[in-house]
């Protein structure tokens, strides 16, 4: 956005045997470096919930790893301002074409561009999937089964929660018993108490949200100070993003990170296998040789890279003999209800979603749709809130400034609802190219009837609950959040891109590890599921290596 604060977006920082120490202003940590012309064991594209986790785990197991990220390598303590506009630097703001009947808003809505990926600006809601969803086709007759058993996923959820020191309640009211969260739950804010009061009035359960920000010290990071700028980057390092968890671990274990490095193409050899990656850094295209390539660019950039790497042996793009690369892209329904409370709420304080209701994830009766949704208390910052107000209500004039001056009395409930996988919702390459010659991705998205029915159900239920909590002057907004799918994993090479270990069916030294693997979307924020799945895939790859099954 600007160079007022730092030059992290203009000049590479991870170089010369060192990388930024994210815990200390101006300081560095040592970083191992690998030559480009000797193949590293793993070249990993992306350092979010998929790539950084894999980089840390594979480096720990003794593999040589280079992880690339198109974004900057920030030190939050000195690079992050308490300012929504400045922090737009954390988003993927390169043009992408968005079409279909219900085009998705990209950029700030769902796409990060920084070392640490979208977790640098995520809202830290750390939920697990309902176990039955991993076999939604078998159990409920919709979507596609995951090629993974829920118990295995739950084992890895516990590991992910420990790695990120999730602050959560002693007992969680939905689903099978789980162990205690590593850190105590946070104090409930006034905004969270509105949800609690509404849920009590409606006779449904509610709970303190398991949240990925510290409720007690951890190493050099302090507990959360309830500053409330979580969604635009935590400037105190309480937020347990990948930038302050798995990225430092990856460096410590001997991985190299290359910041401001955009991978544009995966090279394949005469045998059709991957040989390395072409990447753009410091104004020029470079090539890193690799024995294995892992793509962890999330649901748009991962398909974009695979499609753009088409070559004579793989004319439709890499790993795409199924034709599934880029298809079945999903989002979460993010419809919300807002209202004005008598009391002052001041929802700008603390993590924005400190209370959650998963009632409609676990209750199947009384629905006229497949799938589920959760919803949480809200705390949007001023421009975020104003943007949604004017886009949905068209308020302007004196009325707009008056309305915004009710900000401290506002409360809201917003859903995270699963959309159905549909082949026509997809990522393709457009004919247009960007300034470094890469094709601009084209995203197509339309709701199906099931999606619309779920949104309607949530609007009604959330509205009733907010009214029961005492809110007046209610109004609704519609939007989407998150991305899932686009390279789904499965048991059948004909209908999936990779197997349960993230390994491509077509090219045995090419892996995918990120949110694009999701066969279905689930009714909770995706990050913990991506981290858990990445930890699982890391163990599977390490086991393959021990059995001599790696390239």
């Amino acid at each position, binding site marked *: 956005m600007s160079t007022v604060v730092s030059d992290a977006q203009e000049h590479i920082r991870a170089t010369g045997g060192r990388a930024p120490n994210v815990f200390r202003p101006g300081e560095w940590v040592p970083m191992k470096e690998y030559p480009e012309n000797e193949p590293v064991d793993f070249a990993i594209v992306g350092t979010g919930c998929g790539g950084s986790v894999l980089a840390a785990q594979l480096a720990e197991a003794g593999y040589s790893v280079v992880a690339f990220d198109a974004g900057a390598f920030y030190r939050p303590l000195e690079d992050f301002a*308490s300012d929504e506009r400045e922090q737009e630097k954390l988003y993927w*703001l390169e043009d992408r074409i968005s079409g279909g009947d219900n085009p998705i808003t990209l950029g700030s809505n769902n796409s990060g561009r920084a070392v640490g990926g979208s977790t640098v600006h995520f809202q830290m809601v750390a939920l697990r999937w309902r176990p039955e969803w991993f076999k939604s086709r078998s159990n409920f007759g919709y979507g596609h089964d995951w090629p993974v058993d829920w118990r295995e996923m739950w084992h890895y959820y516990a590991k992910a929660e420990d790695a990120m020191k999730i602050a959560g309640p002693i007992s969680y009211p939905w689903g099978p018993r789980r162990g205690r969260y590593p850190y105590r739950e946070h104090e409930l804010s006034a905004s969270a108490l509105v949800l609690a009061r509404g849920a009590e009035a409606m006779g449904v359960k509610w709970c303190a949200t398991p949240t990925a920000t510290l409720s007690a010290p951890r190493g050099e990071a302090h507990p959360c100070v309830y500053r409330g700028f979580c969604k635009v980057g935590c400037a105190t390092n309480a937020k347990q993003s990948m930038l302050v968890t798995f990225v430092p671990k990856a460096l410590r274990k001997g991985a190299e990170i290359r910041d401001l490095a955009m991978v544009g193409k995966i090279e394949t050899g005469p045998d059709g296998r991957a040989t390395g990656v072409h990447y753009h850094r410091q104004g020029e295209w470079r090539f890193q040789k690799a024995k294995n390539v892992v793509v962890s660019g999330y649901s748009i950039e991962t398909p974009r890279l695979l499609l753009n790497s088409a070559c004579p042996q793989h004319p439709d793009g890499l790993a795409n003999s199924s034709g599934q690369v880029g298809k079945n892209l999903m989002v979460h329904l993010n419809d919300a209800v807002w209202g004005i409370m008598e009391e002052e709420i001041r929802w700008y304080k*603390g993590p924005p979603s400190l209370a959650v209701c998963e009632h409609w994830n676990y209750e199947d009766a009384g629905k006229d749709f497949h799938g589920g949704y959760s919803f949480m208390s809200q705390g949007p910052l001023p421009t975020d809130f*104003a943007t949604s107000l004017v886009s949905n209500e068209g308020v302007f*004039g004196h009325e707009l400034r008056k309305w915004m001056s009710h900000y401290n009395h506002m409360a809201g409930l917003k859903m995270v609802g699963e959309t159905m996988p549909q082949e026509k919702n997809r990522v393709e390459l457009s004919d247009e190219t960007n300034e470094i010659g890469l094709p601009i991705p084209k995203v197509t998205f339309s709701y199906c009837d099931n999606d619309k029915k779920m949104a309607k159900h949530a609007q009604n239920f959330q509205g009733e609950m907010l009214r029961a909590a005492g809110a007046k002057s209610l109004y609704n907004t519609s939007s989407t959040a998150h991305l899932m799918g686009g390279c789904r994993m499965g048991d059948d090479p004909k209908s999936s891109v990779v197997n349960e270990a993230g390994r491509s069916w077509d090219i045995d030294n090419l892996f995918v590890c990120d949110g694009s693997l999701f066969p279905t979307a689930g009714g909770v924020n995706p990050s913990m599921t991506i981290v858990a799945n990445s930890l699982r895939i890391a163990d599977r790859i390490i086991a393959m290596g021990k059995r001599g099954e790696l390239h």
Partner: protein
Amino acid sequence: MAETDPEVREVPFETPYPDYDVLGKWDSPSYNDATRRVVADRLHNVPERRFFDDETFALLRAVIDAILPQQDRTERDRIKVEAWIDEMLYTNKSDGTHYAGTPSRREVWTRGLAGIEHETQRRHGKGFRELSFQEQHALLKCLDEGEADPDAWHGIDAKSFFRGHLLKESVKIYYAHPYAWDEMGFGGPAAPRGYLRLGPDDRDPWEAREDRAPQKIRGLP
């Protein structure tokens, strides 16, 4: 939701937080250096006009004054929303989404503002800047209700331009300004010191004190 009584609608805005000054916390632990640099830049480096011509820029300013009226501020203190819109178009930076089948953002703004002027001429036989505040408001309301002459908009939709570009970009700029944080009682910069008191009707000493209830808006008694 009920439409607002015109009398209520035309009452100018008054802040519930007349004593609050978010910049007063400048030397406190609520501001880190990064934030001081960003806020100082916003206060002191208002972008020069470089994209629009003089006349279109004056029209844009008039439209902004109808969307976010600031009669309560002197010219010096007025939040110059149009300056940052001009800068956004001059630097031509994307926000990450280009909706399929729509022109470039520069084109959308150029055609959208021309559309507003055309619609005003069609209805009033004079320019938007010559209308009274009430007439300007009514005209923009027509755009939002889809009543504009579609022929004058050259392939863009008047309502989408109004809500999706004009209103959206205006509030993104206006509510990122410390004076806007003051009037709405937003805590503002909060690092490294965040907040202690999170409960209802509770606040830390460095938060805004509500002096009077916010004014009526539509749907409220």
